[in-house]
Every structure is written in C-alpha cells, then in structure tokens.
C-alpha cells in the first residue's frame, strides 16, 4: 500500500535518526583515529601516527584474536555441524532439552560463565595460561549460534528426505552425511561460521575475566585503551577493529540474505 505522506515523513525521519544514532559515533571514532588532536578538531591535521602506535602496541592482541577466532571456528565446526545434524534428524523431547542446555550459555551473562570456568579450571595452570582457556569460553558462547544456523538450514531444505533419497540409492550413513547433509547445509554452515568468527573477535564479557597477561584479545586491548590511552589511540584501535569486523558483517548480511532465500 502506498504510505500516507505524513506517515511516510515520520517513518523516514525515525529511520534516518536511528541511522544517524548508529553511524555518527562510528564515523566520529574513525575520524578521531586519523586526527592529530581530536580535542582541537580536524583542523589540527590528519595523521596515520595513531594507527602506527596501535599496531606497535597491540598487534599481538590482534593476532591472538584472529587465531582464537579461527580456532573457535574450527572447534565449532567439528563439534557443531555433526551435532546439529544429529539433533535436527529426530526432533524429540530429548533433543529439545539438549538444545536448550546447549543454548543456555547465550542466556547466561558472560561474566557468570567466565566466573564458573575460572572457578572450575583456573587451578590448572597450563590451561589457565594458554589461549585455549579463552578459546574454550568462546566455543561455549558461539556453539549455539553454529548449531542454530545449521539446524535452521537443515530444517528448511528438508535434508531428512534428501538423506532418505541417498539411502535408497545405497549410500551409508557417513556417505550421506558428507555427500548430502554437509553440501546442502553449506549456507547455514557458512552463515554460522561468519557469525562465530564475528562474535569471537568481538567477545569481551567472557574474555575480560578469562584473559591473562599473555592472552589478551583485541576487545580486552580495546577496553584497556579506552581506559588508559588517548582518545585518538583508542579511536585508531577501534578503527582497526572495524577494519577487521566490518567485512565479516557485510559478508554475514549478504550471506544471511541468500540463506534466507534458499530457506523460503
């Protein structure tokens, strides 16, 4: 229906305001990352100095974040994809319960989860000090997203019948999983993977508690820089973060749309 003029204007206004609310601070932060002195404004000149300082100070956090994100992705793929298939195949009260339990970490505040992990495993020094500790937390937190993305696609493309089709042609369960399930869940797996990587790179709530001086990730560094660094360095650091995460988010958006498309 053609919207009414006033309604249209109101809706447009709200939309643009919302967009400004979301985008203007991000823009300001990007600008600040390039500005010689943000307090004095852009007139003080533009520089790449802050970016350089960030890279010098924090490149290890950036690398560690990438490594942890990839590791998290690997583990969620290995555990999540087969499990998603197993859970989606025969929905029952038991699988509902398993799903509920597995998705619980999303509902429980990260702080509490991290606390629990530290209390349970903080005593094992090698584990506590290695990035694996953070990786464990990230897997716990992102696994539900992988599971759900894959299960949603499995339900949407009716993989069950495809599997029966393959079975009738003589394929064994493992062959069916690799020939039929995985390729046809590709969309969900990819969407889940992008989500997992994005979430892992940005994860702070858990990581703040879990990290040790040796295992600082990008968001932990960001929080440090917000508290103790010049605004320009904090902004430059945020900029680096944007550069890492925005392509992932854009891919997620593009991809989410095609996945939705196939699900229809």
């Amino acid at each position, binding site marked *: *229906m053609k*919207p009414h003029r006033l309604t249209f204007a109101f*809706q447009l206004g709200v939309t643009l305001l919302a*967009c400004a609310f*979301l985008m203007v*601070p991000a823009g300001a932060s990007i600008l600040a990352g390039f500005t010689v002195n943000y307090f004095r404004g852009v007139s003080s000149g533009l520089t790449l100095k802050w970016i350089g300082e960030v890279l010098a100070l924090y490149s290890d956090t950036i690398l560690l974040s990438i490594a942890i994100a990839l590791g998290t992705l690997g583990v969620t793929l290995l555990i999540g994809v087969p499990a998603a298939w197993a859970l989606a195949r025969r929905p029952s009260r038991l699988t509902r319960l398993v799903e509920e339990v597995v998705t619980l970490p999303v509902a429980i*505040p990260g702080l509490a989860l991290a606390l629990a992990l530290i209390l349970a495993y903080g005593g094992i020094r090698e584990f506590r000090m290695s990035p694996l500790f953070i990786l464990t937390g990230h897997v716990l937190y992102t696994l539900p997203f992988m599971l759900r993305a894959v299960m949603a696609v499995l339900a949407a493309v009716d993989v069950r019948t495809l599997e029966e089709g393959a079975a009738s042609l003589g394929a064994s369960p493992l062959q069916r999983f690799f020939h039929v399930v995985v390729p046809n869940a590709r969309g969900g797996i990819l969407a889940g993977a992008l989500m997992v990587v994005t979430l892992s790179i940005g994860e702070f709530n858990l990581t703040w508690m879990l990290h040790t001086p040796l295992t600082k990730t990008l968001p932990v560094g960001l*929080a440090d820089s917000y508290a103790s660094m010049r605004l320009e360095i904090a902004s430059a650091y945020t900029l680096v973060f944007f550069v890492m995460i925005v392509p992932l988010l854009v891919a997620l958006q593009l991809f989410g749309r095609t996945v939705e498309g196939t699900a229809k």
Partner: protein
Amino acid sequence: MHSADRLARMFLLPLFLFVAAFFLLPMVRLVGVAGSGPNGMAEYLAILTNPRHFATLVATLLLSAAVTAATLAIGTVVALFLARNRFFGRPLLVSLLTLPLAFPGVVVGFMVILLAGRQGLLAGLSMGLGLGRWVFAYSMAGLFAGYVYFSLPRVLVTLMAAVEKLDPALEEAARSLGAGRTQVLRDVTLPGIAPALMASGAIAFATAMGAFGTAFTLATRIDVLAMTIYTEFTLNANFATAAALSIALGLITWVVLALARNLAGSGVAAAG
C-alpha cells in the same frame, strides 16, 4: 535406520562431553561456591535481602525494560518503513542499520562516550546551539543509549524479516473490509509481527540484563547487576556473592527468554 542412529550418537558425543565439561560442571562449581561463602546458602537471598543489591536489581530490571520498549518502538517504525518502501539507497540504509550487529559492548560504550560524553558530538551540538553542555554518557541514560545502540540492529533484523514474511494479502483483506491505515496497523500488522516483537524484545531485554562491556567502558556510578558482580568479584574478591548474583542474573534472564519463547514460538534466541 539403525546405522544412522549409531552415527548420530557418535556425532553427539563431542557435544555432550564439551558441554558437560565446560558448562555443566563449572556451573555446578559456581552454585557450590555461591553457597560456600560466610553466609552459606543464605547468600542466594542476598540479592533480595541486601537493600543495595536489591536496589541494583530493580534498577537493572527497569533499565532493561526501558531499553526493550524503546528499541521495539524505534525498531517497529524503521522495520515497517524499510520493508514497505523501495527507494534508491535503501540497501545501503539497511546495511548501515544492521552493521553494528556484532559490535562488542566495549565498543558500544566508546560510541556512547563519543556521542554523549563531555567532548561528545551532542555536547558540541548543544554548546553550539547555546543550550549548555549535554552530557549523559556516564549516567543511566548513557547506559540506556548504549543498550539501545547494541540492540537496535538485532531487533531490526528480526522485525524486518517478520514484516517481509507478513502476507500482504492480510492487510489488503483488512482494507477490502473497509479498515483505514491505523486500523490495519492495530488489527493486522502489529498482531502479525507480535511473535517477532516478543522474540526480539526478549533478546533486547536479556542483553540489557547481562551485558557488561558497555557498563564497564562507561564505568561510572551506574549500578547495574553486571557491574555489581564484577566489583564483588574482582575488587572485593567476594566470590560467593559474585557467584550468587551471577546465578540470580542468569536465572532471571533465562526465565525471560524461556517465557518469550513459549509465547512467541521458537526462534527467540535465534537473533542472539
């Protein structure tokens, strides 16, 4: 398909082991620790009996409710607009609006400081207009802005999908029966997206309840539960209280999500 059942069990095993080892067991420890403080099991009641903690709980609930309401209101208007109009630049607008989807809380906090801090854009704007300096980043209002910032993209994604899935014939049917615009909105459109409103509202609420990064970055005298837990744990080394409060917070959040899911059907946590 017995052989497939066997494979399914094999595939579920790693998940079970992981969840048991790194979720269930630690949570059991957490529950144990919460009860092992000087107050014993009474620690669980601290959130209700300690007036400061209780006040914090109430403040957190109110803030979360306000964030949810505001986000849903804005989100509904924007989602209806974007789903119903096709115009040049719309895809870009949609992208921009959903881009901050995975900004972590700390970054969102920083955005709020840039927006509403003393040196923020709003302060500059209001000073320029001669209205004095608008600074609200470090109050509840700042946290409110941060959580809205955080939740809006999620809510939008869910609501836009819901509006697009809404059968246009429903609205046309209402109009063919003589309903005007507001009547169509009230009787057909809003009820039609009610499950999505429930689902995304629950997510917004849960995030506002538990989010820590934003509060941590703004890090001022904002008393919300996440901050209290953090303070109790890291500054007072008060493990029992921190654990008890964590459990309480987790329970409340989970109950809200579970309720919303029951009311709205599945898919509530999907926007996570």
